């Protein structure tokens, strides 16, 4: 769908205890774009993602995913086209086996068992976890859980992938696998993360949040070279761009 555009207009969101988390967010993302959302803890990254996935409803403003504004009526469609991968895979893998978890979405969509099975195996193949299909989730390693969590969302064939800290807690090998995976996707990708080196590898565009507002939005490399913005948002350059400890450049 080449016209599939994500649009936010003046989105505001406050928690039930009145804390303001998002204070007027606007941006536009086109189909296939790979966008990073970065900022200090508490800047509103996770909250923004939850709003995009339809988990929270903005108190003000509008969010549009493709042809549909997010509201009660369109929620079912939104959930089908937006796949959200949570920070903690244990929250996402709640079924007795990997197969059950990856099949959960398609079964809820009402697909027949044969097609469900096809989708499950395809999704697991994509993330390289096909051999884990009958394992219970508590027997998976951190990297495996992360891969399977992604598969649970892929099996619904979403247009948009939203991910919250995809590389957190992973060993270097597992992390590299996740990065490779994300690079291979055609979906629109929106990734909230502290891992700026992952951003450099995966995302062409970066949006910087600070205190619930967008303070910068542009090509990733521009943002990383903008010392003022990084300082204001409590961040540093990605490690690969910081001085080389050997030759001191």
């Amino acid at each position, binding site marked *: 769908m080449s016209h599939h555009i994500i649009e936010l207009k003046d989105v505001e969101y406050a928690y039930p205890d009145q804390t303001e988390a998002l204070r007027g967010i606007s941006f536009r993302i086109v189909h296939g774009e790979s966008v990073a959302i970065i900022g200090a803890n508490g800047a509103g990254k996770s909250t923004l993602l939850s709003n995009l996935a339809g988990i929270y409803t903005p108190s003000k403003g509008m969010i549009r995913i493709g042809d549909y504004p997010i509201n009660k009526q369109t929620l079912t469609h939104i959930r089908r086209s937006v796949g959200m991968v949570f920070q903690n895979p244990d929250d996402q893998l709640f079924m007795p086996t990997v197969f059950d978890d990856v099949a959960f979405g398609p*079964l809820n969509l009402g697909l027949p068992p044969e097609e469900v099975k096809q989708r499950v195996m395809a999704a697991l193949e994509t993330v390289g976890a096909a051999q884990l299909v009958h394992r219970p989730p508590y027997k998976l390693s951190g990297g495996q859980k992360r891969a399977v969590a992604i598969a649970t969302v892929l099996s619904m064939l979403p247009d948009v992938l939203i991910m919250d800290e995809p590389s957190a807690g992973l060993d270097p090998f597992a992390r590299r696998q996740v990065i490779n995976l994300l690079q291979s996707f055609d979906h629109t990708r929106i990734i909230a993360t502290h891992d700026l080196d992952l951003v450099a590898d995966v995302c062409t565009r970066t949006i910087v949040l600070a205190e619930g507002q967008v303070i910068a939005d542009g090509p990733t490399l521009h943002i990383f070279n903008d010392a003022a913005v990084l300082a204001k948002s409590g961040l540093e350059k990605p490690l690969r761009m910081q001085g080389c400890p050997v030759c001191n450049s």
Partner: protein
Amino acid sequence: MNKIEHRWLELRYFDELATRESVIHTLHPTIKLLTTLVFIAIVASFSKYEIAGLIPMFFYPFLVIGLGNIPIGMIIKRVLLTLPFVLFIGIFNPLLDQAILVQIGPVPISGGIVSFVSIIIRFTLSVVAALLLIATTGIDAICGALSNLGVPRVVVTQILFVYRYLHVLIEEVMKTIRAYSLRSPQSDGVAFKAWGSLVGLLLLRAIDRAQRIYQAMLCRGFDGEVRIVRSWQLSKGDIAFLLAWLSFFIIVRSINIPEWLGTALLGGYK
């Protein structure tokens, strides 16, 4: 504290056993469940003074252990660990029932002792049967069997969820207790005052976790119904297994085989 670690290890141990392969493991889960339940019911139906007649029932666990290649170490350990409470009640039998029931050669034995021994035998048989069920079948398949037998889906789903998150929560509890005991002077148990907030915090974390899980479910289209797809083929071998054991149990219940055997061996029948 050690109790938690032991339980956790046992949980994983029996979990692991269920994934092995053997003739018993491949049997249809409903068959195994039914056989176990009938076994336990028939063991319980013996009269309270029965000892010899019960013995042939041991064929079932022994055969399952053999065919299923189940190591008996952990099973024996479990039996011994759970024995005390039964002994505590059962010990009153020899104390209260002193009427001489039977005479073995020159030795008189009271009814109380007979029923006490019978209790221990029954206990061993039923506990071992239950453990063999989980060791050869696994909670997942057992829930499938329960579903087949008509248990409401809400209940089956609930059991699966509890089991799934048991591992997570036990680890969380273990970590919290460890952190606590590293900073507290006494060595056993949590001080009563700290208990409320310790458990309270764990509870709040659990509630928050449940909320996040719910959100994850919603994102994947959850509509109130948890759908699980499973199928096992019922083969002739499965049915034969069930019928054969059923017949055996009924025969054992009706005839005191050891009595016959012993009498024959001692030349009682000319």
